[in-house]
């Protein structure tokens, strides 16, 4: 006699589904916790991902088009002249992808005192005095408040002209240019031809008195070693390549005299900005998911107590303990899966609405969307374990004694 009691997975699934559909309202309410948990998950990850993408774009525009070259001098020989030669910017301009390039350094004024009137020095101690090549000035994207920038013509003639940063101008009391005002550095007069109100790069320019390179060279001599830097603006996407080539282009025989600072990787920047925020919200989403799972566990347990006589009946009809347990686990897993599906949809809708309101492009990675319903199912599965165990442990005689 080899009789067995058995049931196919398909029939088991059909029984589980029928059990759920018998109480549709309660099933929906039970799944609500998972719906909230999973939709919170998807919304949080989706919104932070979308926001991260916007931050990416903003950083990328500036950071990915900038290369800075620093003069570090020859490794062993101290105190030679600076590493940038007179034709540095011309050499770099010749590289493919370079938009603007120029050298700048702090001018070594012997008695650095800056004032708007001869001999008067007040409140200008923290202002800076920079030699800035016109190419470097262009690379900062200066926004002129008044006047004009100096150009190659001023440089070649070594004219004593200056462009002021807006902060420097207001400290010095220079407000209008029509009277051809001058600023005095070490008692030498420089005619102010322009005031810059904003820059995208080299923020210290706003605190500076900037003069052409050749003017600085003739008044103060060459820069000290390791003081000069070069600012390069490249076309989008070209910065990495330019950074690789620039040292050799500047000094083919001694590229080691330069340190090249290439763009920050936008990805790592965004990760560090968003990491903390993400973690907090993912924690909150996890908590709501856990609460959802407890909701399922609780309702399934109550449902099992109500369905004791059904369990007894099934046992009397030949269901094994395992069959009973599997049916209830399936019920809670299906519930979790349905909750997860609805939750994923709600989460995606939330991300889209938020993105529309912020005028962002919604970005949701597939690795968030596809596993999300499974997360719900997993929550349901875990939630069903204890109730299913209780159901399986029900003694058929006891179960049938209760009327129902």
């Amino acid at each position, binding site marked *: 006699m080899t009789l067995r*009691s058995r049931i196919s997975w398909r029939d088991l699934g059909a029984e589980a589904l029928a059990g759920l559909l*018998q109480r549709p309202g309660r099933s929906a309410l039970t799944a609500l916790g998972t719906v909230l948990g999973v939709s919170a998950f998807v919304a949080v990850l989706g919104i932070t991902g979308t926001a991260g993408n916007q931050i990416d774009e903003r950083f990328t525009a500036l950071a990915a088009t900038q290369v800075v070259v620093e003069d570090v001098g020859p490794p062993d020989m101290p105190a030679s002249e600076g590493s940038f030669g007179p034709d540095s910017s011309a050499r770099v301009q010749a590289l493919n992808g370079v938009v603007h390039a120029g050298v700048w350094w702090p001018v070594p004024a012997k008695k650095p005192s800056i004032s708007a009137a001869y001999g008067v020095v007040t409140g200008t101690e923290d202002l800076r005095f920079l030699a800035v090549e016109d190419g470097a000035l262009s690379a900062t994207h200066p926004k002129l408040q008044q006047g004009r920038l100096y150009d190659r013509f001023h440089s070649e003639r070594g004219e004593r002209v200056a462009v002021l940063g807006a902060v420097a101008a207001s400290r010095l009391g220079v407000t209008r240019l029509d009277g051809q005002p001058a600023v005095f550095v070490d008692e030498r007069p420089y005619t102010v031809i322009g005031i810059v109100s904003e820059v995208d790069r080299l923020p210290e320019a706003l605190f500076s008195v900037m003069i052409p390179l050749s003017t600085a060279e003739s008044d103060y001599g060459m820069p000290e070693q390791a003081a000069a830097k070069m600012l390069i603006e490249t076309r989008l996407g070209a910065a990495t390549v330019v950074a690789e080539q620039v040292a050799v282009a500047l000094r083919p025989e001694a590229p080691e005299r330069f340190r090249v600072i290439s763009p920050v990787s936008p990805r790592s920047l965004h990760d560090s900005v968003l990491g903390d925020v993400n973690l907090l919200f993912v924690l909150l989403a996890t908590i709501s998911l856990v609460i959802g799972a407890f909701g399922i566990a609780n309702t399934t347990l109550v449902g099992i107590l109500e369905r004791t006589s059904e369990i007894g*009946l099934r*046992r*009397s*009809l*030949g*269901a*094994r303990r395992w069959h009973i347990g599997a049916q209830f686990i399936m019920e809670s897993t299906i519930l979790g899966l349905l909750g997860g599906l609805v939750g994923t949809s709600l989460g995606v809708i939330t991300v889209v609405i938020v993105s529309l309101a912020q005028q962002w492009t919604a970005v949701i990675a597939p690795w968030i969307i596809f596993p999300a319903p499974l997360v719900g199912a997993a929550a349901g599965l875990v939630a069903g374990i204890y109730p299913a165990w209780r159901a399986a442990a029900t003694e058929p005689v006891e179960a049938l004694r209760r009327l129902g």
Partner: protein
Amino acid sequence: MTPVIRLVDACRTFPGPPPVQALHPVNLTVEPGTYLTVVGPSGSGKSTLLNILGLLDRPSAGVYEFEGADVSELNDRSRTAIRAHQVGFVFQSFHLMPLRTATENVALAQLYAGAGRRQRMLDAGIALERVGLGHRRSSLSNTMSGGERQRVAIARAIVHRPSLLLCDEPTGNLDTATADGVLDLLDELHRDGMTLVVITHASEVAARGQRTVTIRDGRLS
């Protein structure tokens, strides 16, 4: 012929507190094709006996042989398999699934016997035909009358052609006319050769059987 049921000094004690000796040691042999009725007052141990006969419960001591095999020491899995294939139960309170049709309720009896869905539904239809409910196959069970429900319960108990049909007060909730219909149905099953054990406390029901045993305070006579 091997008896369907053979109880040797089988008893059942519920470990209290206080402990209840629901069934004193009984000896009972039921040959195949017998229509046995069990009568006794409320609380006398009828359901306890039926649960043991149907392998839902084990005797605390003694031997129970079902179709010649000792089943009192079998593991739960094998006992469950015997329930699925060889025993049919008709409960006093129907125990139908309320939101399922008559056919679905009857088909449930073969769900754990490994039959395919189509076969189950087919057999269920035939069994309902047999109990005179062919026209109500797709009615929901909670829209049916008491007599109809009891007949659905009987159809469910016989759909898998068990070797033993156990009925616990099959007419307890029915008026006389409906009860007669159900009893006629049991007679018919008996004529077809099925072994029946029917519990009742009504003597006119007991009289329908071939053989009647009385149980009083857990003692069989």
